[in-house]
């Protein structure tokens, strides 16, 4: 059962935000597809993940430069993975610069009468919906945010989405896919929630047990790939099956719930708590009281299938958290060295490793774009 037609014309891809976890991961995944001729990644920082054939261009959000890259490389698909969804990760001014101004610049780079871009995939966030006491239990994509944004991050996301929607309206020939991702869990990402769940006892707001939706990091990666290889215009929620109550999530992790946060004025004590080391972002405070559920069926109807339910993602995280203290120091850390990367890509003395391994192991390199 598949509803969305596959898209064989995705060949030359530009990934913005290559140095973010999602950008790097997506580039790694796309490298395995024969269909993809070229992967160009842009970011203002150096890549954090090891890449084989992705070309990195260090450029900040300047639309004239981006536009030249898009034209020169004849990019047909732009995948924007830059959105910052944790207001504590980087300074607030930078968040706004990245989420709003950055999005506008990238959209500007894709416009123009002779632009080669025919697909634009935007990774957005379920923070778009906010979290209030009179929300529906399951947000569908057609629902507008019922209340004006309360926090700077939510304001930025609403603004960024508005810009993308405007772009989609003005350029009907471009397939625009927007993915509103739920709270992500996984061993490689660090969010407000994963940090909270790593604490020995998990704080809760007294008298509240919010319903929360989670999604495994692999599923977000696959959701981006699905958008790259299929024709799925529109906005979609990305969230695993099942909505967990926070108390349920904590018991799945095998931790103790600690209902100590005050039900009123939770925002006021967030500041002191941050100083004590429990760094709770503003946009998470309401989530800890009212929670948020998403209707994830629309993306499933395009043929996408989740690998993990919310519960399974939570169990996986629990396993990871138990192994983590043992694993300390074992993780490989990758550092980008421009000279080495350029040598590996362009020197004629480097033998084509991919071609060699392909002949060794048979079909390895002929990975089909659709059935991972």
């Amino acid at each position, binding site marked *: 059962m598949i509803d969305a037609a596959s898209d064989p014309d995705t060949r030359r891809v530009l990934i913005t935000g290559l140095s973010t976890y999602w950008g790097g991961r997506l580039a790694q995944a796309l490298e395995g597809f024969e269909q993809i001729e070229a992967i160009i990644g842009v970011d203002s920082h150096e890549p954090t993940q090891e890449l084989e054939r992705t070309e990195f261009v260090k450029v900040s959000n300047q639309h004239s430069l981006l536009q030249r890259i898009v034209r020169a490389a004849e990019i047909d698909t732009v995948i924007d993975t830059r959105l910052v969804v944790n207001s504590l990760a980087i300074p607030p001014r930078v968040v706004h610069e990245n989420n709003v101004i950055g999005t506008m610049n990238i959209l500007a780079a894709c416009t123009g009468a002779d632009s080669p871009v025919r697909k634009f995939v935007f990774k957005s966030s379920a923070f778009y919906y906010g979290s209030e006491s009179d929300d529906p*239990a399951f947000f569908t994509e057609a629902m507008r945010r019922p209340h004006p944004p309360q926090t700077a991050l939510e304001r930025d996301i609403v603004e960024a989405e508005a810009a993308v929607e405007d772009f989609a309206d003005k350029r009907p020939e471009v397939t625009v896919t927007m993915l509103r991702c739920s709270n992500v869990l996984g061993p490689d990402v660090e969010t407000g929630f994963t940090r909270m769940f790593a604490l020995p006892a998990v704080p809760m707001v007294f008298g509240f047990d919010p319903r929360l939706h989670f999604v495994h990091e*692999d599923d977000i990666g696959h959701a981006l790939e699905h958008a790259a290889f299929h*024709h799925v215009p529109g906005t979609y929620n990305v969230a695993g099956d*099942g909505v967990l109550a926070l108390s349920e999530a904590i018991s799945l992790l095998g931790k103790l719930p600690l209902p100590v946060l005050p039900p009123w004025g939770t925002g006021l004590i967030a500041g002191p708590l941050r100083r004590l080391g429990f760094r709770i972002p503003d946009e998470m405070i309401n989530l800890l009281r009212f929670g948020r559920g998403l209707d994830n069926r629309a993306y499933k109807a395009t043929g996408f299938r989740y690998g993990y339910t919310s519960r399974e993602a939570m169990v996986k995280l629990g396993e990871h958290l138990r192994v983590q203290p043992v694993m300390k120091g074992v993780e490989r850390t990758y550092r980008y060295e421009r000279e080495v990367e350029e040598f590996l890509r362009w020197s004629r003395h480097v033998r084509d490793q991919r071609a060699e391994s392909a002949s060794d192991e048979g079909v390895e390199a002929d990975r089909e774009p659709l059935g991972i």
Partner: protein
Amino acid sequence: MARSMASDRTSLAHVETDDPDEPAERLPERRPVERMRELLPAIEPDRELNDWGRSERVEGFMDRTLVEFFYRYWFRAEVEGIEHVPAEGGALLVSNHAGALPPDAAVIAKSIRDEHSTPRPLYITVEHFFKGYPGFSMLIPKIGCVAAHPANVHRLLADEQELVLVFPEGRKGTEKLYKDRYRLRRFGRGGFVEAAMRAEAKIVPTCVVGAEEAMPVFAQLDFMKRLTGLLYFPITPTFPWLGPLGMLAYLPAKFKLRFLEPIDTVELGGREATEDKALVQTVAQEVRGRIQENLHEMIGKRKSVWFG
């Protein structure tokens, strides 16, 4: 790193065949309700709660203890017309409403669980207020209450095919004083009819006699309501004198329930007729009229408030 983590489980859709006759430019259609139903999350047997936050454990415990006691021995509930509650498919139960902390919802749910040939869970719609108030917010979903949002009602009726109970009088019903007992308030703006029609679910008018006497409200204190941030602050024989427990101190009035013949919204025109505001209002009036009429009849037959 990421790649090795991804290897133990992979998820992208498996494409069985790529139909060569199909044009590549075909747009994916948002599928109609019937087919979206298949895509609802599967039930995970290991979970204690469902996606609405409903807990079988908490609900079962309440059912065996508090609700059982009130239903059997305190209110001695008597049920008529339970066969009018459909055994399958979504249906919207519409009932009159009274009592400071209304016992009627729990009694209706219990009657379907105990007396119906195919016992089904009942979802009770409550004010959004409860989700925002500490304590209530935690307990209320566990026992099968959901916020009265049109989208929630639609998902329950149309997609999940469940039974939903609404009180169209809403807060106007629970606020009303003892002297106004069994006088139905305005039935909102007919939103419940719209919800049922959009979901093509049956409407089951339901009458409850006894709830008004079980917890008579003599007055509403406005300034106390504002002080506590509660929905309302009633004066009853036991509240606030016994503190929060006074909310559960019901008088032993005899409860009588009557489920009336269901109204088929498909016959009324179903989903397409939802926009017809006149029809919606007429149906809402009709439902209200039938409940009021039956209430009068039931009270007329009742010889004693306490013994029925």
